[in-house]
């Protein structure tokens, strides 16, 4: 899992005349509505083509499209992260991959393909997880585009980029463009961390994966999916006890398939197949190449507009619904005050090193402007004082007498929750 900079194949670094003739129509002169900060001409072209560094997360269905679009619109320093290897089932829509590439890392093959195909573009792949990288890594980019299918990974990168924002350093604010598709539906959005609504703010808008009532699965199966869930949710733990089901292990999927098939036979249900089994347990949503193309194109247009200031960018959520005709809707998704990532309130407090936790809590309760009752406090690594449940209250009670400075370092943050607060409060502690 190492970063590998690949050489540039047949590609030449130099541009040829009129290579960007069409794109330059937009970059050479301002329009009536372009932002006043737009530097038409060489300034913006130089930024786009020799300074701007962009990170693409995911080299799958959306990622392949995104990489191609970025390279062809003039981005030249592109990085790509993906932890997966190429599966034969990817080849119908992930067009940077060929049958000979099956089994190889997506990020590396995609990078190689783009560099061979588009001269002068450098694509730096990383085969691994986004969580492997630290803040310094993410700091080097101007922009981040995500084409992911995992909620968990999106939540992680969103929180990381929100946390990266340092009010003292303008460079620390990295626009995040997030694309996602589900069959004929998709969305593209622009997140300006801490300024606009973030991914976590909209978490409750997500379609949740279909789950069937467990009693239906156990007693009255009617669909092939019920049989598959019976095998994975009820039979697997019963037969294998604590052995964890690995949905990437073909042997495990094989066992589930066989078990589900037998169950389906018993209840005269048709339609249990290997691929349906895999689809249900991995929660695979059918991917359609053309939906990916629309959403990726829209993400890349936004990246281009944000990088160049050549036109107004998306504010902030574009939704495409192709399941019943074609419907699209763009709206400003609002920041949630109680968002645990970008919402809540932050308070700077300066206290003496002698203050006890008890005294700090008293001070919080007395503060008129926050109206806090029964606060519970923790740092990112430890509990300071919990009001409930009883076991944790008892365990943390001795801390009340301790000095805050014994538990929290200067400049550290304390997370405060309380039933009277719809959001969480962050205390930035300074000792005086």
């Amino acid at each position, binding site marked *: 899992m190492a970063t590998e900079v690949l050489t540039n194949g047949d590609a030449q670094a130099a541009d040829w005349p009129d290579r960007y003739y069409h794109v330059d129509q937009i970059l050479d002169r301002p329009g009536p509505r372009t932002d006043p900060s737009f530097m038409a001409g060489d300034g913006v072209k130089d930024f786009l083509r020799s300074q701007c560094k962009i990170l693409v997360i995911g080299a799958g269905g959306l990622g392949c499209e995104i990489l191609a679009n970025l390279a062809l619109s003039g981005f030249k320093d592109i990085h790509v992260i993906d932890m997966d290897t190429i599966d034969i089932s990817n080849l119908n829509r992930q067009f940077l991959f060929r049958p000979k590439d099956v089994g190889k890392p997506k990020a590396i093959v995609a990078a190689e393909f783009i560099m061979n195909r588009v001269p002068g573009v450098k694509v730096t792949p990383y085969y691994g997880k986004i969580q492997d990288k630290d803040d310094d890594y993410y700091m080097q980019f101007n922009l981040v585009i995500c084409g992911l299918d995992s909620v968990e990974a999106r939540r992680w990168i969103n929180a990381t980029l929100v946390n990266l924002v340092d009010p003292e350093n303008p460079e620390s604010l990295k626009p995040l463009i997030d694309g996602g598709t589900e069959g004929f539906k998709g969305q593209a959005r622009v997140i300006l961390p801490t300024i606009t609504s973030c991914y976590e703010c909209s978490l409750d808008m997500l379609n949740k994966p279909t789950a*069937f009532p*467990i009693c239906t699965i156990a007693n009255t199966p009617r669909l092939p999916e019920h049989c598959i869930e019976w095998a994975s*949710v009820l039979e697997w733990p019963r037969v294998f006890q604590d052995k964890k089901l690995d949905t990437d292990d073909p042997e495990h999927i094989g066992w589930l398939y066989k078990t589900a098939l037998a169950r389906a036979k018993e209840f005269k249900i048709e339609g249990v197949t290997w691929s349906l089994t895999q689809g249900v347990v991995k929660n695979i949503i059918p991917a359609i190449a053309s939906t990916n193309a629309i959403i990726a194109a829209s993400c890349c247009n936004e990246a281009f507009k944000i*990088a160049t200031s050549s036109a107004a960018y998306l504010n902030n959520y574009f939704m495409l619904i192709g399941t019943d005709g074609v419907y699209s809707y763009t709206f400003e998704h609002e920041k949630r005050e109680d968002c645990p990532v970008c919402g809540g309130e932050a308070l700077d407090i300066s206290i003496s090193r002698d203050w006890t936790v008890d005294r700090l809590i008293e001070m919080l309760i007395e503060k008129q402007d926050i109206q806090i009752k029964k606060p519970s406090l923790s740092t990112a690594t430890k509990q300071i004082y919990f009001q409930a449940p009883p076991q944790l209250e008892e365990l943390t009670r001795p801390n009340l007498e301790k000095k805050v400075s014994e538990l929290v370092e200067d400049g550290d943050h304390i*997370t405060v929750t*309380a039933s009277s607060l719809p959001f969480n409060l962050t205390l930035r502690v300074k000792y005086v």
Partner: protein
Amino acid sequence: MIKIWSMKKNEDAAAKRKPKTSAAQIRVQKDLTELELSSTMKTHFSDPADLLNFTLTITPDEGMYKGGAFVFSVNINTNYPHEPPKVKCTQTGRQIYHPNVDLEGNVCLNILREDWKPVLNLNSVLVGLQYLFLEPNADDPLNKEAAEELRKNREQFLHNVKLSMRGGSIRGVQYDRLLVQ
């Protein structure tokens, strides 16, 4: 590049840097410290530093399961509250005579699966579990025999519940003794 920082200047303190406490972590802290545990429910953390895994003991003080003690494991993953917590009955022999709990400890409670929403919290889950012991539901059976009995012959069902909690056997299934008093 667009000039985002000028927009930033108009923002107030709300947009300052935050600690590295994950969203799931904050939400679990909020949920746990606001739990309203009645005297019939008790949580236990075998590793108090790990807020994501604990057990819940329900000791109903009314209804047909009065006098029993029922232990559930609650496992929260880092994708909470997008995903519901995983709840299983972990009685030592894993045997409990209840229409909505099977002999493996699986629990049929709608908010644990199909009706889970991120606005629900741990308190809703605990209340839901407690309710199962007050009002066992014959319409969502996991233990089919128990559900059938409850529907057809309530008296016999009550008898079976008592028998099972004393450690008796019903239709060849030996139940664990769960009585605490």
